[in-house]
């Protein structure tokens, strides 16, 4: 058995970028099938245009249409493409200086082997069939045989200026619990709540940390905690939000388990939300055993025990 528990986690969000007038002008051009650069204060034509001049720092205003044909100035081979790259087969990334521009810009070059790429080779833009005002409106560059001309772009679907792009970001992690947390989650899979005691300050942490947050001492002594505890403080969540797993309204509460020195955050059910109180005594209510996993979600919620409320003095140092 592995010492630690791991699980995949994906963090993904579609960010909505405002392009501003300069990048927006470039992307509007791509949507219309033309490549737009801008002239800097030193007279250079830069593609894509810079929002602000690197010398005078002024906002860019002089736009220049350049050719969709250009010359490879440098390149690298991508033998094993990864997710999100322009092709799922081997390809080249190339720096291409378009005719009419003074500096190169980076895009994919569609060739089947590195033997087909040379610095100085002529290439042209291959336009995407559907263009929306995005860098991927240029599907890629492709070799330009002698005598061939620029590719023509199919007609654009819109003529409105581009003001934004959606940037889909998705990160895949392997979430690794520490050995001490793994002990905690394995305990939950057996219906037990495990903590650890700090040998220096004697505080019992649940879930256990690898080291005491207060004095840095590694924790080792395992402590099984009671299934009952006291609500120290709480919040009634009435607000819905993206990614929410529990339907509001619900009570999110800090529960100080008997024998622990730090509260855990959990859900309170079995009592109307407006009757939940600081000091209320609660007990863990587990899901059916066949649904258990290595998770704090094995405890479905905490519910009132019916005991009298704990005295404020017994938990006031845990607020």
């Amino acid at each position: 058995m592995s010492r630690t528990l791991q699980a995949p986690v994906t963090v993904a969000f579609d960010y909505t970028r405002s392009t501003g007038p300069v990048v927006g002008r470039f992307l509007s051009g791509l949507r219309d099938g033309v490549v737009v650069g801008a002239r800097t204060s030193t007279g250079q034509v830069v593609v894509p245009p810079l929002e602000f001049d690197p010398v005078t720092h002024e906002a860019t205003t002089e736009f220049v249409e350049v050719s969709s044909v250009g010359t490879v100035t440098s390149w690298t081979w991508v033998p094993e493409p990864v997710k999100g790259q322009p092709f799922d087969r081997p390809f080249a990334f190339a720096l291409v200086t378009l005719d009419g521009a003074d500096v190169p810009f980076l895009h994919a070059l569609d060739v089947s082997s590195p033997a087909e790429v040379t610095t100085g080779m002529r290439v042209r833009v291959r336009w995407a069939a559907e263009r929306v005002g995005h860098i991927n409106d240029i599907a890629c560059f492709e070799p330009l045989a002698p005598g061939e001309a620029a590719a023509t772009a199919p007609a654009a679907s819109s003529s409105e200026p581009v003001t934004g792009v959606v940037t889909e970001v998705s990160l895949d992690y392997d979430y690794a619990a520490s050995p001490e947390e793994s002990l905690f989650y394995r305990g939950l899979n057996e219906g037990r709540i495990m903590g650890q005691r700090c040998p220096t300050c004697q505080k019992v942490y649940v879930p256990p940390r690898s080291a005491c947050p207060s004095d840095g001492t590694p924790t080792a002594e395992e402590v099984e905690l009671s299934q009952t505890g006291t609500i120290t403080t709480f919040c009634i969540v009435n607000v819905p939000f993206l990614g929410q797993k529990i339907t509001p309204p619900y009570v999110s509460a800090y529960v100080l388990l008997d024998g622990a020195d730090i509260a855990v955050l959990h859900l309170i059910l079995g009592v109307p939300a407006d009757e939940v109180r600081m000091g209320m005594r609660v007990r863990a209510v587990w899901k059916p055993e066949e649904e258990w996993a290595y998770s704090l979600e094995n405890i479905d919620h905490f519910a009132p025990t019916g005991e009298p409320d704990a005295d404020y003095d017994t938990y006031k140092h845990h607020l």
Partner: protein
Amino acid sequence: MGKQPAAIIGVGQTHHRAKREDVSMAGLCREAIDRALLDANLTLDDIDAIVVGKAPDLFEGVMMPELFLAEALGAAGKPLLRVHTAGSVGGSTAIVASSLVQAGVHKRVLTVAYEKQSESNAMWALSVPLPFNMPVHAGAGGYFAPHVRSYIRRSQAPTHVGAIVAAKDRNNALKNPYAHLHNEGTTVESVLASQMLWDPIRYDETCPSSDGACALVIVDEDTARSSPNPAWIHGTVMRSEATTAAERDQVNPQAGRDAAAALWKQAGITSPIDEIDAAEIYVPFSWFEPMWLENLGFAAEGDGWKLTEAGETAMTGRIPVNCSGGVLSSNPIGASGMLRFGEAALQVRGAAGEHQVDGARKALGHAYGGGSQFFAMWVVGADKPEN
């Protein structure tokens, strides 16, 4: 050799809005920067170094702002640093910038902090479910609401004190043309009637989501002589503490108390409430005004709400708090701390416009972040410090 004197001679900010879809992040930063430079009567060519701060990466999906913003921030050929301390970042960024001048490394430093909340979703970013864990997190409001409840219990404060803060700050914002919210007619009653979001926090007691930026020009003594009204830095402090530790005081965090004590000592202040003329305190949820009044030492523990209830934190009170409208009226998270620092500077420069506190000579700028575990604060004054 001790610290070199340093002063703020330029303050710039954007008009904060829910959505600034007309500008990119670079354009947003430049609006603030250009205003700060104009205020300082300097250009980007006069600047020695740039320090940038912004909200946590997931909030905007931007992991290296310094990389893609370098030329827009005028950093070509100059040192460019990025600072990252969650919600307190705007304050920490200003402190890092000021330390470059105080250390004698640079003479004229530009600092900028920003956030474009419209491009993302902070509530989502703060509530991403993790494997093995219970998905009960509910954004910043969900995190801080239990601690607000603890404060109310501990201090025995009347439950309408939060609404007093919200009504005050929203009315102060009417005097600040840059503020995001200009909600005319906000009263304690209207705040109390607004929807309960994260009980005990109501809708009108929470900050908005804003797009915005703030920039400061911080300079050495020689350069400051050219300014008619420099805001001199009298003290800067940052402190951190563990997010979760047994018996950690989440209502009155140790790091905040320690930072404040060190700050008052540095600035030669023995009675903050008597010596500070205006305070810009990071209050994203209304109840944090009385909580931080205690944490900062303006009131004894348990007494912060009494200052608020008595009107002492209003513009005409003993300790005017958030005359700009504060975080409750504009919240571009990455910039919110720097806005507090910049508004403090505007007060002692006599440049706060309609929300100016008459005759302000010393002001506090304050920011906190994470789970109340990062604190950044400064005292600025109209007079050059003697020490």
